[in-house]
C-alpha cells in the first residue's frame, strides 16, 4: 500500500479558501446511501494531509472524507503572518465555507485538534461531532515543556524544521511513534520534500513561536463545547492522561479512548483500533 493506492479514486485539487490557495484531498463517500455529513481531517504541527494515509479510505466507507494542508503547511499557500491558532482557524473556516455544507464532522490531531476544538467553540459552528487525537491546547506551552521528554522531542523536532535532511526528518518521525519499525520511507521522502520547499522552515518556526495563550482551551471554556467529543490518546503519548480525562469530563458529551501500542500518532500507528472507533462514534445518532 502506498499513498497513491490509498487515495485512489479520490481527487487532489487546489481550492480557494477565502483567498488562500489550499491543497485539498477528497475521497468520495458511498453515494446515495450516505446520510452522514462529510468528515474534515486536520493534521498536526509540521504535518500535511498525507498523515491520515491509514485512515481516510476506511472512514470514507460511510461519508465523504476531506483533508487539507493547514495554512502554510504542505502545499497550501504560505499566506500567514503569525501562524497562531487564530490564523489557522480563519483558514479552516474558509475551507468549510468553500465546501458550503450545513454540518461537518472534524478529526483533528495535535495542533489540528486545537484548531478543531476552537472551531467548534465558535457560535453558529457547523461542527456536528469532534474527534481530538492527542490534541494540543489543553496545557500551557511552559507547562508542556516542563516535561523533559517533551522538551527533548521539541528540540529534536526543531532540527528537522531548521535543517531538513533524511536523518533529521526520520528522527522527528520516529519520535512520534511507539514502534519505530512503522516508519515508512515514502512518508519520510514526502516530508523531506515538503520541509525543503522555500519558506517551509520559516512557517514551521513561526508556528512554534506563535503566542497561542489567548487560544488555550480553558476549564471555563471546555464545558461550552457542545458537539459530542471523542478524545484519543496513544498509550505511550506525552500528553498526561489526567489532562485528557479532565477535558473529556468537562465537555458537554465527551469520552476518552486510550489506543494501545501508539504514541503521538495513534491514528497512524494503530489504525486497526482507531478507524472503527472513530467510524462508530461518527455513526451514532445517524439513522
Amino acid at each position, binding site marked *: *500500500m*502506498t*499513498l*497513491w*493506492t490509498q*487515495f*485512489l*479514486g*479520490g*481527487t*487532489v*485539487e*487546489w481550492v480557494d479558501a477565502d483567498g488562500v490557495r489550499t491543497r485539498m484531498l477528497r475521497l468520495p463517500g458511498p453515494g446515495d446511501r450516505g446520510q452522514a455529513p462529510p468528515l474534515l481531517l486536520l493534521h498536526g504541527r509540521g504535518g500535511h494531509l*498525507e498523515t491520515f494515509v491509514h485512515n481516510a479510505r476506511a472512514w470514507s466507507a460511510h461519508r465523504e472524507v476531506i483533508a487539507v494542508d493547514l495554512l502554510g503547511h504542505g*502545499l497550501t499557500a504560505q499566506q500567514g503572518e503569525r501562524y497562531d491558532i487564530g490564523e489557522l482557524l480563519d483558514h479552516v473556516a474558509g475551507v468549510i465555507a468553500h465546501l458550503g455544507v450545513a454540518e461537518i464532522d472534524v478529526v483533528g490531531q495535535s495542533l489540528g485538534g486545537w484548531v478543531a476544538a476552537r472551531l467548534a467553540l465558535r457560535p453558529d459552528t457547523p461542527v456536528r461531532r469532534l474527534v481530538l487525537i492527542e490534541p494540543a491546547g489543553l496545557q500551557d506551552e511552559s507547562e508542556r515543556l516542563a516535561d523533559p521528554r517533551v522538551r527533548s522531542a521539541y528540540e529534536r523536532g526543531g532540527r528537522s524544521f531548521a535543517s531538513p535532511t533524511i536523518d533529521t526528518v526520520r528522527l522527528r518521525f520516529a519520535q512520534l511513534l511507539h514502534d519505530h519499525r512503522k516508519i515508512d520511507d*515514502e512518508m519520510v*521522502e*514526502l516530508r523531506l*520534500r515538503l520541509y525543503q520547499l522555500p519558506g517551509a522552515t520559516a512557517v514551521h518556526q513561526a508556528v512554534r513561536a506563535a503566542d497561542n495563550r489567548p487560544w488555550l482551551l480553558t476549564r471555563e471554556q471546555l464545558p461550552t463545547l457542545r458537539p459530542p467529543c471523542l478524545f484519543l490518546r496513544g498509550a505511550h503519548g506525552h500528553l498526561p492522561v489526567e489532562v485528557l480525562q479532565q477535558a473529556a469530563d468537562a465537555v458537554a458529551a465527551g469520552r476518552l479512548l486510550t489506543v494501545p501500542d501508539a504514541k503521538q500518532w495513534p491514528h497512524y500507528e494503530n489504525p486497526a483500533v482507531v478507524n472503527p472507533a472513530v467510524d462508530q462514534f461518527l455513526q451514532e445518532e445517524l439513522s
Partner: protein
Amino acid sequence: MTFWTDALGAQVRYRDAGEWRTRSLEAGDEGDHVIMMGGLTGHVEGFIRNVVPLAQRGLRVYAIDCLGHGYTAKPDNVTYHAPIFTEHLLRFMDSIGAERAHIVGQSLGGWIGLWTAKEHPDRIGRIVFATGAGILLDDEARKRESAEIHSRVQNVTRRAVEEPTRESVRRRLEWLMADPATVTDELVETRYRIYTLPDSRAVMPKLVAEQPSEENRVHLLTEADLAALPHEVLVLWTDKNPTTPAEVGRRASEILPNGSFQLMKDAGHWPMFEQPEEFNRIVGDYLTRPSS
C-alpha cells in the same frame, strides 16, 4: 520515489467531457495545452513521471484516462472505435477551454492523436506519437504484421481483463517493459484496482473486443493519410517495443510531411515510464521549440 511523490504538485481531478466524467492528472498554470493519452486498458499513472516535469517546461499538461479506461466513464452504448475516442478528446478539450492542444499519445493514444488531427486538423497542434498504434503501411508484409499485432494485443489484454488477478495484471505489465523490474508493486496494485472496478468488469471486455477489432481497421491511417497530414509529428520509438517494430515508425515519419523520428534505447512499450528523464527531455524540447 513513489507515484505520490512523483505527482506531488499535480492535481487529480474529474472533468465533464460532454456527458463523460473524465479523470485528469494535471499540472501547469500557463503555456500551451498538452494532452497525454495512453494505450488500450491504460490509465493516467502511465504518465505519472511526466506530468510535473513537463509542466515545469512551461506547459499546461493533462494526462487523461481515455473513454472506457481508468476512472473515466465507461459507457456501454458506444462502439470503441477511433471516432468515439476522438469525440471524447474533443469534449475534454472543450471542458478545459482548449481550442487547440498538443497531443502526447502512446500506443492507442497515438492513434487517437493522429485520427483527431486527420478529422479535426485545427484542434491539434504538435503530436508526439510514442510507440503508437493506428498506422498501416502499403507494403503487404507490413499489413500482415499489423493484423498480427492487433490480434496479439487483443489476446494478451483479454487475459488480463477477463479474470484479473494481481499475477495476470503483473504479467501483462511486464510484457510492456524492456526491464520487467520496472513493474512495481504499486503499479500492479493500481491497475488491479482499476481492472476490478465494477464498471471495468462490465465494459472492458467490450472495449478489448472492439478497439483492436477488424472493423476498427478502417480507421487506421494509411500512407496516403499520413502524406496529407500537415501537423508536426515526432514519431518516438524504442529499441524493445513489443508491438510494432521501429522500422514502421521510421517509415511513417518519412511519409509525414512534417515528421521526425527518434529512437530511445532500453525501453519497451512505455518509454515515458521506463526512461522518464530522456522522454521528458525529448518531448519537452519538441513541444516548446519555436515554430518554424
